[in-house]
């Protein structure tokens, strides 16, 4: 093949276009879908927790007001989630204050009223690491690591109608909204207090800017969920937040650690002459696997190729590497190469053949290549390789 890359790609696209629907048909189909979406544009109700609301009919768990282009459909005034231990719902409607609808649409004001937490809450793993504010990467696959939690004492059957979308609020106004992805939404059953990890879509500024501007924001995550059957049956928006977040300036320059770098690892020293050096701190595996940082770099200490792999666990080579790192104070698990696909090519590991397990290895993950290289230099350990590339994995 003697074509240059542009010509080759052009020809591939020509072939695809020839097989695809013509633009006129695309226009008609998309226009109809957009009309349908605009007709049922939802607003979100954020009300107080269960205490102040009463029960009506026992069927829905939150009030939702639909605001379309020129139409507004009123829904029952009084809706709430029934208490887990509440008596059977009364057939008589009861007058109670109507929670005012709150819109997370672009430009809409947002106040500080608490989000509804029953029967489902959207929570974030950010809070496990302290008070915030937290620095987020709006280019990451998961901007805000969130999960859906069943806050009732009953099992809930759910269908996720859309993925969690991140809304950013600044000075009390929604300034960025999500570009939602197609929902790969299996039906989910959550037991009491069980969690469902959520994926969120990209967030874009409301004013037309492609990039989210650096600054401080209040972040909300919202998604539409259908509860199937039971006292909370219905389709509604579930909102989590707010979380104080900071979007940093773009183009982080990869630098060697400076005086502000983290202290030496708690687990001990590496090479003798590096005892007093400041060691780059590895990223926790659970955080690295979330795929939030495109610059994540893995240092691979041991690798089992597919032909020798046993599906993880019990391989002496991997266990030995884990023990060596444990002696330095690093507790690491064994990681399949599926969690960092680029590792195959960079490390020269062959692809698995049919019937073979994927390659497995033991790795430490760092926020940048510079950190990884510096760590290896200080540790003075033999490593299989350093791989900078997308890291993402999820283990159920």
């Amino acid at each position, binding site marked *: 093949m003697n074509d240059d890359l542009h010509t080759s*790609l052009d020809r*591939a696209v020509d072939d695809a276009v020839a097989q695809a629907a013509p633009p006129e048909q695309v226009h008609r189909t*998309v*226009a109809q879908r957009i009309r349908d979406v605009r007709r049922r544009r939802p607003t979100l109700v954020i009300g107080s927790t269960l205490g102040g609301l009463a029960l009506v009919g026992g069927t829905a768990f939150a009030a939702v007001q639909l605001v379309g282009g020129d139409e507004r459909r009123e829904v029952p005034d009084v809706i709430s989630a029934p208490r887990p231990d509440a008596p059977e719902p009364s057939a008589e409607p009861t007058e109670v204050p109507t929670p005012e609808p709150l819109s997370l649409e672009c430009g809409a004001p947002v106040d500080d009223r608490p989000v509804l937490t029953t029967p489902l809450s959207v929570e974030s793993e950010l809070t496990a690491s302290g008070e915030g504010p937290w620095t987020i990467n709006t280019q990451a696959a998961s901007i805000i690591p969130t999960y859906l939690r069943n806050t009732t004492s009953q099992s809930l059957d759910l269908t996720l109608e859309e993925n969690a979308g991140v809304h950013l609020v600044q000075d009390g106004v929604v300034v960025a909204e999500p570009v939602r992805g197609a929902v790969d939404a299996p039906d989910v059953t959550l037991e009491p207090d069980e969690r469902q990890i959520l994926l969120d879509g990209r967030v874009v500024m409301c004013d037309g800017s492609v990039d989210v501007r650096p600054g401080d924001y209040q972040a909300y995550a919202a998604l539409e969920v259908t509860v199937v059957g039971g006292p909370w049956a219905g389709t509604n928006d579930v909102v989590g937040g707010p979380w104080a977040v900071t979007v940093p300036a*773009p183009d982080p320059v990869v630098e060697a650690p400076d005086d502000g770098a983290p202290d030496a690892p708690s687990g001990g020293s590496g090479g003798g002459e590096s005892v007093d050096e400041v060691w780059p701190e590895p990223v926790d595996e659970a955080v690295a696997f979330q795929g939030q940082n495109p610059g994540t770099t893995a240092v691979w200490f041991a690798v089992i190729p597919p032909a020798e792999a046993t599906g*993880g666990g019990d391989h002496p080579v991997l266990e030995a590497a884990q023990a060596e790192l444990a002696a330095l104070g690093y507790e690491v698990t064994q990681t399949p190469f*599926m969690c960092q696909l680029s590792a195959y090519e960079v490390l020269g590991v062959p692809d698995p053949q049919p019937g073979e397990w994927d390659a497995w290895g033991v790795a430490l993950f760092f926020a940048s290549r510079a950190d990884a290289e510096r760590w290896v230099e200080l540790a003075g350990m033999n490593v299989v390789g350093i791989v900078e590339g997308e890291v993402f994995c999820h283990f159920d």
Partner: protein
Amino acid sequence: MEDWEQAMGELVRTRHRALLGYAYLLCNDVREAEDLVQDALVKVFSRRSVPQREAGEGYVRKAIFTLYLDAYRRRRRWAGIRHLVGTADRRESTDAATGDLLDITAAMQRLPPRQRACVALRHLDDLTVAQVAAELGIAEGTVSRHLHDAHATLRHLLADLAPAAARDTDHRPADPRTTTEQRSHQ
């Protein structure tokens, strides 16, 4: 006709091939590419505010990449645990194609998604590195790095790629490896 429909219609009429091509080079499947483009158009033009003409295509491209990445991650999420049942399947489905087309599309699938996006925008749509960076919301240096790594992979998989790699003259020349490798292929 409402503003959104007019803007969307013009975009589809004038840029459908470019958008479909971009989506196709990401996913290597015509049907999936069509879905990506349509879903992206719906997402962008369903918003309350209609994007300005110049920004509209950028929004749709970004939505295409986002939607693809979301689906890609879900496939990998399954693939990330599928090894537990001994199924080794890293190859995504490819359209039936022959000869050169199979070479380039198969080779593109060996690239991580961001590298694929950079190659598609740079070499199919002839965007500059700065424009690619703006489209994807990443730094120019990161784009240069993605292109460098992608070229290295494609060069390994395909023949006669040096003339195309040498067209990247507007990225930062700071990486000595790039210069060295280009010289070695001349």
